């Protein structure tokens, strides 16, 4: 039984201009201990889907519908807000993009760690403080016990993100969602954080959803990848399959526009021209059609079905790219 089961998740928002269909029927499973990458550009719906899973989208203005959305067998969509609050931070945790703003500037690091432990694990202050020290050491923060009384502005960006990871993992959640967690960091720091998360995920047997638009990072850490475009999963595959046998025009475009270490100066980056479609008035054909370089005749006639291209490898594309 999968840890996280998502079937036909749809999220829409009421706005001045109409209904924005941010997520249009996403389905996937996540196993315990698996690292799933989610790749897509800004506005593709990847963050919205995660927030919906975490029950952090207030409804209204959002509307969340799914035929199934469950964590460890428990229905996430139907549960009360009080129950969702118990799960958040304890069973499912999230790390966000901007470490510079994620920590409360007027509270100490120790306080922000301890409050989660006290809230979910019922530890008393002393227990919580010593556990907090362990957590900081786990994420590689030196002089952990002294750092507890420090304030966020005294930490660098990379250190702050480590603290966020410590907070997220403090109660041994089953699921960790990292939404562009390294996008705002230097490349070298990025690598450290990625290694850290990978190691901890395997040590603590945590399932991770790693959201990124950076294919390089995804290639280095994920087991499987979902490619999202315009609110739908257009391709899903094991990471090697995705990079060696991309089966969707968008994936192909993404790979073509990613700089590679083994390229020579003569090879050029091919950007994807055009803009993503309007989510208020979603297209009835393949959403990527206007920008696709490998479109075939059928693409202009109907929406492509989801086809299998190998074990755990599916894509919604008419073209035969392999």
């Amino acid at each position, binding site marked *: 039984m999968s840890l996280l089961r998502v079937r036909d998740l*749809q999220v829409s928002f009421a706005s001045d201009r109409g209904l924005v269909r941010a997520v249009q*029927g996403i389905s996937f499973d996540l196993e315990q201990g698996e690292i799933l990458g989610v790749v897509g550009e800004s506005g593709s719906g990847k963050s919205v889907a995660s927030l919906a899973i975490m029950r952090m989208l207030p409804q209204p203005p959002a509307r969340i519908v799914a035929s199934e959305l469950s964590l460890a067998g428990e229905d996430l969509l139907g549960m009360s807000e009080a129950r969702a609050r118990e799960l958040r931070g304890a069973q499912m945790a999230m790390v966000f993009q901007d470490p510079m703003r994620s920590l409360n500037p007027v509270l100490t690091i120790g306080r922000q760690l301890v409050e989660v432990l006290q809230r979910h694990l019922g530890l008393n202050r002393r227990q919580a403080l010593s556990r907090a020290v362990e957590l900081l050491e786990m994420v590689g923060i030196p002089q952990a016990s002294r750092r507890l009384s420090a304030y966020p502005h005294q930490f660098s960006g990379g250190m702050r993100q480590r603290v966020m990871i410590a907070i997220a993992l403090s109660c041994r959640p089953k699921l960790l969602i990292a939404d562009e967690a390294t996008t705002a960091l230097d490349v070298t720091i990025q690598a450290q954080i990625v290694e850290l998360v990978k190691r901890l995920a395997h040590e603590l047997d945590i399932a991770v959803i790693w959201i990124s638009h950076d294919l390089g990072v995804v290639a280095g850490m994920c087991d499987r990848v979902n490619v999202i475009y315009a609110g739908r999963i257009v391709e899903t595959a094991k990471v090697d399959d995705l990079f060696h046998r991309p089966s969707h025009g968008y994936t192909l475009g993404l790979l073509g526009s990613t700089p590679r270490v083994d390229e020579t100066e003569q090879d050029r980056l091919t950007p994807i021209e055009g803009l993503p479609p309007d989510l208020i008035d*979603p297209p009835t054909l393949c959403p990527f059609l206007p920008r696709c370089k490998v479109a075939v005749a059928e693409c202009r006639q109907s*929406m492509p079905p989801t086809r299998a291209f190998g074990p755990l490898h599916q894509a919604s594309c008419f073209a035969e790219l392999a």
Partner: protein
Amino acid sequence: MSTLRLAAGQFLRNRAAAAGLICLLLLCIVVTLAPVIAPYNPIQINLGAKLQPPSATHWFGTDYFGRDVFSRTLYGGQLSLSVGLAVVLFAFTLGVPIGLVSGFVGGRLDNLVMRLTDAFLTFPPLLLAVAIVGLLGPDMRNVVLALGLVQAPVLARMVRGSTLSAREEVYVRAARALGASPLRIMFSEILRNIMSPIVVQLTIVFSAAVVAEASLSFLGLGAPPPQPSWGRDLSDARNYLSDAPWMFLSPSAAIMLCVLSINFVGDGLRDALDPRSWRVRAKPVPPAAPVAVLSEDLA
């Protein structure tokens, strides 16, 4: 569509602002036409009719001297609104150039101006006004002078701040490159671009001036009798609070109406002139439908 028309549209769609504007215009009209509208002479004493409650003959009743409260309120409005306007003009003429020059030129001049405005701003405004009017004598010109002097530094500070940011804008560099004189840059280019916050601030100055004038009159430092004044009428009403509540209700309501409408207009202007708070007229939202449905179904 020009920005001004877009802003005007935003303003008028803001119900409070539109109501405030209508109210204010009505007030101005009514007050200006006081000689025509007022049923009685506001300063005519008629001791035989003193302290009468509102009735058909005296809509708002009479005061201790038998004067018609409604007429007095109308004429008092003339005083308050004209003082307000005069103070606005004074503060504008004094504060804006100082702020512009100080912000544009910078350096030692700016420092000096800052220190001077600091000094003025350390006085609670009412006290300063009391001191000035009290010492110079109760005269309309002194009242306007005092209130204007109190408001001008605030305006100057604000204009200086806006000028400092505007100074770095491209259009200033362009004007300089075209050979425009500093004077022209300041008073033509920059001023034109920072008018919005100035206008909003001027509404605040106006309402503050109306209240301050009433306060001064209340304390006996405003226009001398027999000039009708909302503040002095309130002061007179003090002694007859339980006998004749209409004496204080009428001027209070008038002040409140005046200040409220000016404030609404000011708020509306602030929102209208800031594109970030512009609201687009909302389209009706279709109900959510399951996925894999053609978009035609949603219409």
